[in-house]
């Protein structure tokens, strides 16, 4: 099939950017979206033009590197699917596809579709861990963790940190990302000791790093390629309230 791509091109952070039009010809339905872009890039290179820069790495939906807004939806809107796992058979011959970078103040653009997501790392640095030392910890079975708690923590821990929740959020908020880590650690006995400090520090860090506030649109859950549930945001809110009384 043949497609018309409208791709955001921007040479650098402080340069002007705009949507450029490219033709993707003879696209196979078995190609992944990124492989389709690979071929467009090959043509561009052979024509002496600058290929489109985009983030990608594992190409199996787990590293969280790929980050493109396709037709207005982060990762293209297929249920629980990252861009790298999105296949061209979901498109039709003659389709026009708009490809844009993650947009949020906290994610400054670096080039074309590549943005800087280190703000998410800084949220984790503010408290997304248990302060345990290497070595000198208790046996893994010393503290029992009921299966439902372990499963709940695992549901939250599936977050791949891609930032789609922020890109989709009308407020540019990182609440789903933040809450997934808060909820994971708050559900486990190992994380409970620091739960109160953690929730305050991480939400504060979210604000300081330029993310917006959550107003319960739930767009984040819809955009999340791992289906992280907004119930974790409710959990964060509970944890925050508890912290007020400590």
């Amino acid at each position: 099939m043949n497609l018309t791509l409208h791709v955001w091109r921007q040479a650098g952070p402080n340069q002007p950017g705009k949507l450029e039009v490219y033709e993707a010809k003879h696209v196979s339905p078995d190609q992944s979206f990124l492989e389709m872009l690979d071929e467009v890039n090959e043509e561009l290179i052979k024509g002496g033009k600058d290929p489109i820069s985009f983030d990608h790495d594992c190409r199996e939906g787990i590293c969280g590197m790929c980050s493109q807004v396709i037709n207005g939806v982060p990762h293209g809107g297929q249920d629980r699917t990252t861009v790298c796992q999105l296949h061209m058979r979901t498109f039709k011959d003659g389709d026009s596809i708009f490809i844009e970078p993650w947009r949020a103040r906290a994610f400054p653009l670096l080039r074309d579709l590549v943005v800087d997501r280190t703000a998410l790392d800084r949220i984790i640095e503010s408290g997304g861990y248990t302060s345990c030392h290497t070595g000198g910890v208790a046996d893994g079975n010393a503290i029992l963790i009921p299966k439902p708690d372990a499963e709940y923590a695992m549901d939250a821990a599936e977050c791949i940190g891609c930032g789609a929740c922020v890109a989709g959020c009308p407020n540019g908020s990182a609440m789903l990302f933040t809450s997934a880590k808060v909820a994971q650690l708050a559900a486990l006995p190992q994380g409970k000791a620091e739960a109160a400090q953690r929730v305050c520090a991480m939400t504060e860090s979210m604000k300081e790093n330029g993310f917006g506030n959550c107003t319960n649109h739930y767009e984040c859950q819809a955009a999340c390629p791992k289906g992280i549930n907004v119930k974790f945001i409710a959990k964060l809110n509970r944890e925050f309230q508890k912290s007020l009384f400590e």
Partner: protein
Amino acid sequence: MILDGKCPKGPIEQSWDKHRFDMKLVNPSNKRKYKILVVGTGLAGGAAAATLGELGYNVEAFCYQDSARRAHSIAAQGGINAAKAYPNDGDSIFRLFYDTIKGGDFRAREADVWRLAQVSNNIIDQCVAQGVPFARDYAGYLDNRSFGGAQVSRTFFARGQTGQQLLLGAYSAISRQIKAGTVKLFARTEMLDLVVVDGEAKGITVRDLVTGEIRTHVGDAVVLCTGGYVNVFYLSTNAMGCSVTANWRAHKKGAYFANPCYTQIHPTCIPQTGEHQSKLTLMSESLRNDGRCWAPKKQGDNRPPNEIPEEERDYYLERKYPSFGNLAPRDIASRAAKEQCDDNRGVGPGGRGVYLDFAASIKRLGEDTIRERYGNLFEMYEKITDENGYKVPMRIYPAPHYAMGGLWVDYNCESNVPGLFVLGEANFSVHGANRLGASALMQGLADGYFVIPYTIANYLVKTAPGKVKADNPECKKSLENVNTEMKKLLSINGKKTVSEFHRALGKIMWNNVGMARSEQSLKEAIKQIPVLREEFWQNVKVTGSGPELNQQLENAWRVADFLEFGELLAKDALHRDESCGGHFRVEHQMPDGEAKRDDENFCYAAAWEFKGVGKEPELHKEPLVFENVHLAVRSYK
């Protein structure tokens, strides 16, 4: 030269404890004066940086991805082994040690493997303390599953995302140290050279992938945790950015490369659909518990699978290995699939695939049971192929997956270049010629959390902190070399793209140095690779410029190194005139197709010294001594 692995003497049960005591310590107040450069932030690198930072060293960590959380350790699905023996099924440190030595086809160093088995238990405790949500049973105890190559249940897991959860644990630990100021992270930064001063590793030259700035970082020791090299096959299950570059640059600066020919090919991957394909996706090999492998008996049979009658199907694994059937070991299953396809009986696009059929199991157990066991894998398969594995047989094909070989290191994880330490998949130490499932995660974390913190001190006490400054002539030389190389890459302006070269190299490697290797095929590869490399430096087209975000340039550098490394891999494979583990020479096989080792002549680790591009590398041998496990034919029958 005969290499010394510096293994501790005496009973193996006490070897690590004794060695820990014998090693020197760095005074706590002196630690912050030492700067350690850690390259890579996967399980090994993340764990090492976090632990060294916590100890008080001044750590700088580097990764090419945009965050320390994205290294390819994240893609490991199955689990992590430990000798906890929680299920009371007869497991022990010795048994894990034994299984790993045997699984590696007797090509690993005993003392290293013992240590790995010993600290495996600490890893689980550490990860639990970090908040890794391992699977639990209803009583709240840690759950275990069994895995290939072992008769006990010792694998801990977090759904099908164990690697992800362990990596996020290490990432959280490193994040904590970044906050504490002991670790400084340089993301989107790729190592392009090792700086060696007076024979010791004292720095690295890196390129900032955003600004394009090339600069040198100096330190008191360098720790490489830069993963494996199977992207030399172009199509593999590795991430797109995985490369041999850091290792190769260290190799070119004097570090020996050991056993590069030991590569693991995973049997159950989703086949390639066309030339456009950029990578292959692995599905857990547990699928073979209930799936039956077959190919049509007739050559070139392109009927849909459900129209091929039972008697015209060849259940080749069941036919060839009646006792093991579809559960034959990874290497055997992989090679058998290749044989079917070479015989023009492969299925799917390009005829590179065989069927993995669940019809019999679904009939026996019902679709629901199969869905319960493998639902996520069927879902993944459908996402990629658009086929319903419950209705039509899955198509699978083997794919390069893991590198057992790597930079040569002694028992302290230190390479032959003093001050250069190598951890995880990047070194060669514990997996021998074949890695068992759920052991890669174990090794990465063992090296990072529990080995390097002790062994690096033993080196550091011998060197004064801050000995080398950034204005050292070696740093300048390194910067110049990297800059010259970059200018060369950008100025060729030829006709072929970087990925065309990578693809071409991959074809040579896969066809000649892949699952089955012969003297003839290896010689063919050794002939073809230099020709391709020559063409690369004449005819590659790299767009853009140096001082900017330039993904073509990044790739060009990586492919350039693969083009040199591929030749070494082939040469090592040619020199190792035996079959062992993942290295299968068609000349050396048992009547039943098992690998036939030659312990008399090849019971050593082959460590190669770089002598120049296109020049014959020099072979150094480290003899392997087996005092605790007796050399025997590896058999799983």
